[in-house]
């Protein structure tokens, strides 16, 4: 495995995908019946891929660790999904979606992949509507849109605050149809613990049945990983509790390069931490920034009075509020991209203006929107626009219709009513742009091993725009992989079934078993969570919203020490041959402890600021991120036995269709 070949087709950017599809090898329907594909993950990426490949005639085996494919973490996505439909006639186009995504990613993504994504985005909406996904509509019966951060058009489709749920249930229904037909065999409550490589090609996986503890061998002609992101390395995040890096980390150890591990998205609007017992953080959708204004008090006296409970936020007059995003970024205001909004919140809180007890919260205020909508409604209904109580009541109804479930969620958690007092929010880990390196075909550096959805690195560069992850997951699964994998499998029509009673499977299985035995027989003194929380602290404090050389070097050595301590001292109760969540968690944390070190190493190596990666040493005099031309490449790491020994390969990024500029939202 030498240099990276991204296999981007020749030709004009706008023609690449079409020409590519015209020229690839196809597998005829009769032969597809003889080909098996393993898909790990049933989120938007894995679920849509499984359904489509099964429809095409391949034999699919799908895996997920939850009790049903419908529960993949994609279910939690709230705000929406982008598509360049230009239904609003506000100037949107394929090129504009492409441009926004590359710019939003701070010029660290691959042009050809992003353009393809923008091209197929419109098909996604058509497909989902045909499946019965109940997207929001206007009174004329047409699809409705909203705006998300970092763009100047309205291209986000949504289903209340449960867009991910509805899209995933759409993919799940398509899977169900194929499960019913026997074309997909579903393995729920199964965790993949290794990839099996035969003659240099991915030919299967080792999985653990989480109910019985049994270790199973599964073979196929190709293996697809749609296993999601690794934000839980930070312990606290907006991810589901089970989200993990294990599948892609095992793939990395088997030869798949890991790209840009340090690119992490820290989402600006999450509910702040309430105490040590905290197990996860809850996102308040970015769509709230359409109507909410973010502020902290201008005066330190007010901040202190609020913290002591002597003043309420609504007591602070307009002129004593600092709407810092509107102040710093007049063009985009509260709708700047996530990385910019998060750093701005951190800047205010670091300067001492945080508004909760720990000083780690800012306000997200809907009073102005309630008044605006209320007036509008009063006008429409011919009622008294000067009647304050009436206007407020009408305005609240509109806000409730738009964000009711989010407001309810907030009230349940914080025990405060956000219709009456501003929400308190703070940034939290939310998404990982980094992931397994893939070429244009979505194939990793291991032949026959693919990575799709959040598990790969390909489309979002150093920062992802809101509502683009759902788009990418479904694009990969419904519209891209079904073509690219056929091109590869065309060589396998005569291979026949892959045997599992071979040395490669024996070796992989015994490695998995010995890892599990080591964990279960360790009899240490501390629980898995004890180590996970410690890792999370190191990551958040030293590899979080801003990073510097000293902290990163410390992080590297501290994580390595923590890993050694983990293997000496972790305690996993119970047995390996039964339902044992602690054992599953232990395996996942063991992998986070390796990835965390590579993460810090990658951040240290990248001596620039770009998107979610902010290095204190590289900022403009105004405190904005400073990108450096020398770093216009993808860092793809090759595993060499220990995270610290990983070898860097670079994929230079070339921009021929977009001018690389300073990313300004002023």
């Amino acid at each position: 495995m030498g240099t990276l070949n991204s296999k981007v087709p020749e030709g004009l950017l706008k023609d690449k995908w079409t020409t590519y599809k015209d020229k690839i090898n196809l597998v005829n329907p009769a032969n597809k019946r003889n080909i098996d594909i393993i898909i790990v993950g049933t989120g938007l990426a894995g679920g849509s891929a499984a359904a489509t490949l099964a429809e095409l005639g391949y034999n699919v085996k799908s895996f997920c660790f939850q009790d049903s494919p419908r529960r993949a973490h994609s279910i939690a996505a709230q705000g929406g999904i982008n598509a360049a439909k230009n239904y609003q006639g506000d100037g949107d186009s394929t090129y504009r979606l492409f441009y926004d995504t590359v710019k939003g990613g701070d010029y660290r993504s691959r042009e050809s992949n992003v353009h393809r994504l923008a091209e197929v985005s419109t098909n996604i909406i058509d497909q989902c509507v045909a499946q019965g996904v109940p997207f929001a509509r206007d009174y004329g019966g047409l699809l409705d849109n909203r705006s998300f951060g970092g763009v100047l058009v309205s291209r986000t489709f949504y289903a209340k605050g449960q867009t991910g749920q509805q899209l995933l249930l759409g993919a799940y229904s398509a899977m169900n149809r194929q499960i019913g037909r026997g074309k997909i065999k579903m393995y729920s409550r199964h965790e993949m613990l290794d990839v099996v490589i035969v003659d240099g090609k991915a030919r299967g996986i080792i999985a653990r049945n989480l109910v019985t503890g049994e270790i199973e061998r599964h073979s196929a002609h190709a293996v697809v990983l749609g296993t999601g992101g690794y934000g839980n390395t930070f312990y606290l995040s907006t991810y589901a509790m089970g989200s993990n890096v294990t599948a892609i980390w095992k793939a990395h150890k088997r030869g798949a390069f890991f790209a840009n591990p340090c690119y992490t998205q820290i989402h600006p609007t999450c509910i702040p931490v309430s105490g040590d017992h905290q197990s996860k953080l809850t996102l308040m959708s970015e769509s709230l920034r359409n109507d909410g204004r973010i502020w902290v008090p201008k005066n330190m006296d007010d901040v202190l009075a609020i913290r002591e409970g002597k003043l309420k936020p609504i007591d602070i007059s307009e002129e004593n509020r600092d709407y810092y995003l509107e102040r710093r970024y007049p063009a985009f205001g509260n709708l700047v991209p996530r990385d910019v909004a998060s750093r701005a919140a951190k800047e205010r809180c670091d300067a001492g203006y945080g508004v909760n007890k720990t000083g780690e919260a800012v306000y997200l205020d809907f009073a102005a929107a309630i008044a605006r909508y209320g007036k509008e409604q009063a006008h429409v209904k011919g009622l008294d626009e000067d009647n304050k109580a009436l206007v407020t009541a009408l305005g609240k109804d509109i806000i409730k219709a738009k964000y009711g479930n989010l407001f309810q969620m907030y009230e349940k958690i914080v025990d405060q009513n956000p219709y009456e007092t501003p929400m308190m929010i703070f940034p939290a880990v939310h998404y990982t742009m980094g992931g397994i390196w893939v070429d244009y075909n979505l194939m990793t550096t291991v032949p026959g091993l693919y990575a799709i959805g959040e598990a790969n690195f390909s489309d979002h560069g150093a920062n992802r725009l809101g509502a683009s992850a759902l788009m990418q997951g479904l694009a990969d699964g419904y519209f891209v992989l079904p073509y690219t994998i056929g091109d590869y499998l065309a060589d396998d029509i005569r291979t026949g079934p892959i045997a599992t009673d071979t040395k490669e499977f024996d070796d992989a299985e015994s490695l998995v078993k010995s890892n599990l035995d080591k964990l279960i027989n360790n009899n240490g003194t501390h629980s898995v969570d004890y180590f996970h929380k410690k890792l999370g602290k190191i990551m958040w404090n030293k590899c979080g919203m801003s990073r510097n050389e000293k902290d990163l070097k410390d992080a590297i050595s501290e994580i390595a020490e923590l890993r050694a301590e983990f293997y000496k001292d972790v305690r996993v109760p119970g047995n390996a041959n039964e339902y044992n969540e602690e054992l599953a968690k232990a395996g996942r944390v063991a992998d986070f402890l390796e990835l965390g070190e590579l993460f810090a190493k990658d951040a240290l190596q990248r001596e620039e600021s770009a998107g979610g990666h902010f290095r204190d040493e590289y900022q403009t005099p105004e405190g904005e991120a400073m990108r450096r031309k020398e770093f216009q490449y993808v860092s793809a790491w090759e595993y060499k036995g220990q995270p610290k020994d990983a070898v860097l390969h670079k994929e230079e990024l070339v921009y021929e269709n977009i001018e690389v500029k300073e990313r300004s939202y002023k």
Partner: protein
Amino acid sequence: MKLTLKIWRQKSANDKGKIVDYKLNDVSPDMSFLEMLDVLNQELIDKNEEPIAFDHDCREGICGMCSMYINGRAHGPDRSITVCQLHMRSFSDGDTIYIEPWRASAFPVIKDLIVDRSAFDRIQQAGGFISVNTSGNTQDANGTLISKHAADEAMDAATCIGCGACVATCKNSSAMLFVGAKVSQYALLPQGQIEAADRVQNMVAQMDLEGFGNCTNTGACEVECPKGISLDNIARMNRELMKAAVK
């Protein structure tokens, strides 16, 4: 606050199972219910005992994984939320809390509070879909107008998270609310019409095969459903069944 917990422990499907008592001395009202169980599990692990197994993942009320009976009520005392959204401020110092798994013959216990809900998946596989392949050539999404009213109503039905509280809480272990919600989502949309008759018949047949009971209109399911799925969906499903029968 101080709490006494009485929790169902069952080693495996074949084990008989029993209620075991635990005490917690320092529970914060800001903790979620599952975080309270995390604290208990941490103490159990520190004492070298086996932690309590329970299903959970998103911890924000959307994945449908969490599932338990608290003091005899599915998802606990508060309405319109899942267990993972329940906070300890809903309890008082000194309370005794009973925690048990869903009880229904179609949902056998796997371990402690974890049950097997794969019967729900099989009902969906029998017909919970629209038969449309991925092609990239489906008609434009705005090609068919759908009234806002129908879209919103379909959305309300579609918000079911498949948790199974409706079954657990029903004295007949009926799955009508769950099945009715899916049937309704498609029945309300033009895309769902073509297969409407087959869909409802196949899903209901599978529901019966899985051993879920009949609906006797007690309405308990609607009360305990964390997503407020309405009984209207059951009525709509029955209408769809009648329509299908006369076809």
